[in-house]
């Protein structure tokens, strides 16, 4: 099984363009807990790189905008409200690549030493479909 690229979160390191080619830098860094790693790997294994790429594209480029593919739902109720700069919890679903719940923070500082940068935190991953 091909392992999806992943790295320890460091607020001072930016993603490099593949092959040095100019590319549009992702607007958000996509983060998840180590405990979700296995589910992410399963998602890639089951759905395939290309399908999961669509999911990643949404998280990295437009978690705060209507999706180009699939659907986004802003979740309801007091427990789903964002605090401390985090957005409300959003649910993104795309056929063939599963579902994720996430929050985004446009100006996360990553602690006292971090510069402001935009992050997406994956709350949960589910490969089943409704």
């Amino acid at each position, binding site marked *: 099984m091909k392992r999806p690229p992943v790295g320890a*979160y460091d607020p001072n390191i930016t993603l490099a363009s593949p092959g040095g080619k100019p590319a549009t830098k992702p607007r958000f860094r996509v*983060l998840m807990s*180590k405990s979700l790693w296995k589910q992410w790997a399963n998602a890639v294994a089951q759905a395939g*790189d290309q399908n999961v790429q669509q999911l990643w594209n949404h998280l990295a480029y437009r978690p705060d905008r209507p999706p180009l593919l699939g659907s986004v739902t802003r979740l309801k109720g007091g427990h*789903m409200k964002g*605090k401390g700069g985090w957005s409300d*919890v959003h*649910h993104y679903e795309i056929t063939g690549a599963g579902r994720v719940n996430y*929050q985004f923070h446009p100006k996360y500082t990553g602690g006292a030493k971090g510069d402001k940068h935009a992050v997406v*935190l994956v709350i949960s991953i589910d490969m089943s479909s409704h």
Partner: protein
Amino acid sequence: MAVTTRSGHTYQSTDLTTSKRRDFLEEARVGVARLRSSDGETLVALPERDLNVLVELRTHTLAFLSLENAMSRARDDRRPTDFGELAWATVFDDEDLGEFRAEFADGLATALAERSVNRLVETIHAWRLSSELLRDSVAMARVNADVDEDDLEVRSPTGMIDEPKE
């Protein structure tokens, strides 16, 4: 309340074999047309999409009444079956349930006005998704939590980082 038609006319079944058939179909297409059958019973014809909305509205209205009924009971006296097909909503506290009820009522009114249940279905779907996440205590512990050393940065699965085009 009786059904009103555009012309107020009740067609006879024999009209369907004459040029009046075109008027009957046109009236049905834009709203409702009434027809009296040979045994005297009155029938109506309307666009199937309108009938579908009415059938769906009936289902959603029954669900809403179940919600109302369940919420009228003290929290400790409520059983999941009281919520009918909305049993998944039992996970919400009373404040969330009140918000759900208000949005449900708005959705029903909007569906009647728009002759479409789409927005109501979206609202119910959003609440259902929320109930599923709320039951996942491990995931809920991550909501609004700070990023920590255990968090990983997920790179592009294919290595491509070209912005998707509109």
